[in-house]
């Protein structure tokens, strides 16, 4: 679960190539070398994660490089989830009429 690009030893050429291709494909650039290295780590972690999802999936789905491969799971949740706050989804079951809704 804590695999980083460094853990892979001298970074395999394939990983660097794959990351370079990802950057070109999805038009990604990073402001500093440190940020580039961090995103490469996350990218490597996500490749492992995709493989795990692939093994766990009971359907026909394929997982791998996507436009979000340089984001951590937390960043992805914050950027692309929808919830206003954790929990608290109201329980609603009635039909709401077309009248002007009451202000709560």
């Amino acid at each position: 679960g804590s695999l980083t690009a460094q853990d892979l030893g001298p970074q395999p050429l394939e990983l660097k190539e794959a990351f370079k291709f990802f950057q070109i494909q999805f038009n990604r650039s990073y402001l500093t070398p440190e940020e580039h290295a961090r995103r490469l780590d996350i990218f490597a972690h996500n490749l492992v994660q995709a493989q795990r999802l692939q093994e766990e999936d009971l359907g026909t789905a394929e997982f791998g490089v996507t436009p979000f491969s340089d984001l951590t799971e937390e960043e992805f949740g914050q950027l692309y989830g929808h919830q206003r706050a954790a929990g608290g989804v109201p329980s609603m079951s009635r039909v709401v009429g077309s009248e002007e809704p009451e202000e709560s």
Partner: protein
Amino acid sequence: VPHTCDWRKVAGAISFIRNQGNCLCCWAMAAAGNIEALWSINFLKFVNVSVQELLDCGRCGDGCHGGYVWDAFSTVLKNSGVASESDYPFQANFRPHRCHAKTYNKVAWIMDFIFLPDDEQRIAQYLATYGPITVTINAKHLQLYQKGVIKARPTTCDPQFVDHSVLLVGFGSEKSEGMGAKTVSSQSRHPRSTPYWILKNSWGAQWGEEGYFRLHRGSNTCGITKYPVTARVQKPNVKPQFSCPP
């Protein structure tokens, strides 16, 4: 319930694939897609409605920080309709106190909205009869999804934790082999069909299957039955002009 249904095959029924960018507005985009589809299959009116209006004019006032599909429908009811995307374009931001609902002509409106039962068979029946609906799912598996049908256990994709709203546009079955698509033993190798839902996402056309993805149908994968919600643009007993193409 038909075996297959795909509203994308009705020309113009499903609008373009949106991209929410860094704005947490999947809820507004799913609602917009629902209203657009219902207007096209009921009235042959092909409209793109303003997501920005749904954000700017929502009662909760923080549209790019998340929300719920029913907030968007409430906003459309409150404003007696919604403007067009071209008049009131998406800016991927939220502008408090900048609601321009009264500035532009309304291009679509709704009569009400309803919550459907948490039953996949009944959801399929409603979808095939009346058109696309919105659902809210656990998006955990979508970050690294490329293609195919996602089938997850509740332990790997919690159906109670739903955090992403999308538009359900159809269903079908895919031929695969063996007990599970990826656990084929020589003894169990036989054709098998994998039923799936077709869903329209709002992360651009570069993601997934040209902006769409598929979830297994019949196992409440990733909580798809938790909040099935749709607007209505006709009286409940009036069916649309089109039936869902197989």
